[in-house]
């Protein structure tokens, strides 16, 4: 007995769940395969959930989704060894009926999303790994799983198997990940009582704070750190490019240990009990590293397609949006009675190009190269900024004019005037 479906979705992260939910809601016969024991067991994220992408799939998600806190304040810190300089934006407007960003924990969130997928009518089978794509005459016709009698057929296969998609690689859809295009992030969850979190971050109820961090903690490697408030815990993480880790020989957990022991962080996590440690890759190659997104009988979405906006730490929303658009492509073709050929699936790429997903990636397309070529963004500048602040804020009898001159000189000394102007121009061009 061979099983055949309208569509098979590989993976039950945000991309796969968005795809399977959208397909099943349209009445298609969908099979979703996930290797984890339950959806979410293997997944790692900061995690900030961006409401908009999910709202377009499940408009009333706020009714029952396991959300931790809605973000009302964002801080940006640039750290030096023992200091930080930063900005923050906090607004009561973020306390609206339908907040724009939430902190979440992926395990319960993915479980919730998966229950919605099942309720919509998809068949979800876990603890089953897809080992390869079945191809006939250059066309993907199904998947092979690691189980006995494990071949399953479908009109189309949506790959949402996450960063470093082994399936796409095996099928020859894309090559090895370049270590320059992928970050390795580690994170920990520290449990603290709700009251302590509220008082430490000056928040009430389910309000939450996000701190994005750059500077000395990455040892000059291209990378950033983050701290998010959950209901009863704090997530703290740091990530840098794999190529930089290789070069520096610094172990990722060493960075996390140093971050935890930074005088700016210690008082925030003090007394917490570490409950969870996780490490995961993030595709950060951006626009230029996006592989082929579709072919005969297949599409690829989410991290497996490299759809991550590293500058804004957005991934899950690009994953959900691409998963949804892939599903809508199938639905539209099915509606017209058309097969999922490469030619017909081109509308998936067009839909992605027309959405924020590709537009944002395109906007920052130069950034990865600039950051690789200019390590001082992550080493010299944080130090200079902190020293400048220190100089200006130390009242010691020296006049302000002289202090400004000291600051200016320290910048030119460490990075020539030419370099400064060049950096400014390059950053402007890369982010404009």
């Amino acid at each position, binding site marked *: 007995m061979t099983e055949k479906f309208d569509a098979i979705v590989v993976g039950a992260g945000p991309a796969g769940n968005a795809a399977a939910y959208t397909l099943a809601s349209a009445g298609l016969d969908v099979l979703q395969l996930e290797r984890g024991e339950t959806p979410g067991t293997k997944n790692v994220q900061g995690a900030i959930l961006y409401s908009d992408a999910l709202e377009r799939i499940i408009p009333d998600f706020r009714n029952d989704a396991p959300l931790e806190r809605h973000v009302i304040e964002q801080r940006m810190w640039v750290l030096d060894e023992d200091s930080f300089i930063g900005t923050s934006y906090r607004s009561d407007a973020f306390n609206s009926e339908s907040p724009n960003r939430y902190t979440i924990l992926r395990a319960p969130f993915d479980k919730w999303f998966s229950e919605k997928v099942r309720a919509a009518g998809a*068949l979800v089978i876990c603890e*089953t790994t897809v080992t390869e794509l079945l191809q006939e005459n250059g066309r993907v016709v199904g998947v092979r799983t690691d189980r006995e009698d494990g071949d399953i057929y479908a009109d189309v296969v949506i790959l949402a198997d996450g960063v470093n998609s082994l399936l796409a690689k095996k099928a020859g859809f894309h090559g090895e990940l370049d270590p320059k295009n992928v970050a390795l992030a580690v994170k920990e969850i520290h449990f603290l009582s709700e009251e302590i979190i509220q008082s430490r971050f000056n928040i009430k109820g389910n309000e939450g704070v996000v701190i994005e961090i750059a500077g000395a903690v990455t040892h000059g490697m291209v990378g950033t750190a983050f701290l998010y408030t959950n209901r009863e815990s704090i997530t703290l993480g740091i990530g840098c490019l794999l190529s930089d880790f290789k070069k520096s020989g610094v172990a990722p957990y060493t960075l996390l240990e140093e971050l935890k022991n930074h005088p700016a962080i210690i008082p925030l996590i003090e007394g917490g009990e570490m*409950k969870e440690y996780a490490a995961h890759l993030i595709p950060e190659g951006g626009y230029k590293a996006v592989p082929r997104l579709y072919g005969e009988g297949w599409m690829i979405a989410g991290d497996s397609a490299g759809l991550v906006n590293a500058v804004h730490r957005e991934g899950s929303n690009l994953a959900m949006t691409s998963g949804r658009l892939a599903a809508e492509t199938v639905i539209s073709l099915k509606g017209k009675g058309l097969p999922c050929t490469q030619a017909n699936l081109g509308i998936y790429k067009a839909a992605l190009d027309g959405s924020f997903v590709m537009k944002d990636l395109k906007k920052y397309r130069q950034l990865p190269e600039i950051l690789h070529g200019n390590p001082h963004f992550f080493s010299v500048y944080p130090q200079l900024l902190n020293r400048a602040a220190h100089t200006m804020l130390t009242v010691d009898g020296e006049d302000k004019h002289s202090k400004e001159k000291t600051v200016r000189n320290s910048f030119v000394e460490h990075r020539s005037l030419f370099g400064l102007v060049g950096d400014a121009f390059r950053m402007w061009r890369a982010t404009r």
Partner: protein
Amino acid sequence: MHIVVCIKQVPDSAQIRVHPVTNTIMRQGVPAIINPFDLAAIEEALQLKDRYGARVTVLTMGPPQAEAALRKAIAYGADDVVLLTDRAFAGADTLATSFALAQAIRKLGEEEAVDLVMTGKQTIDGDTAQVGPGIAKRLDLQLLTYVSEITDLDLSAGKITVQRRSEGGVQVIKTRLPALITMLESSNTIRFASMPNMFRAERQVVPQWNRDRAGIEDASKIGLKGSPTVVSKIFTPRPSSQRAKMVGADLDATGVANAVLDVLSSDHPRFAREIGLVTP
């Protein structure tokens, strides 16, 4: 041949955590698993099915969520499952549990006579090892506990031969059917479900039996009412401060035995008297 396997869904004790603030056990969020000993029972039943042909029915009494355990059982290859679930069953101790399960097995036997009932040796949460024997007694089945392997089954003669772990070593026991076997965990490992069975596990309807469906008329025998057990106190046992003694390391067997007897009679005179080691 009809085999009924009883399984219990238990919290994965390896993943139970203590709340850092309140120091209480956090059951919430702890994944539920099939009691490991019961997995061994399922596997042994499936191997009998492979060898001799059989219908394997898996039975559990528990809350509606226990359905997940039964779906797993289908994935492994069980033919049928029954979820015994009713508010009236709540709060059962081993007496009430074995009563309800025995009733349900009786009902199952009305459809097709039951030749063999299998349970785990014990659960990892309740740990009593009483439910299997309780069922055997009520259904008047031959009881074989701590079984590590079923070596032979002769259906026409109605005989079963098993290896049973006992304190002295391994016993090989032959008895008549119908029988109840409680399985040791180490006996075998559960198979990796095939893809067709994974599909069947998702699609098969899991029948839910309430008290009436299980043919239980006397409500005083089930649930809290039918449970005389009272857990009056739970505490962490203190490790004993007594040191272990080594005796006769360099003696032969007889010498060691004599050395042990000497220690016993000097350290535990009352015990020594009772077993006649020294005359009063």
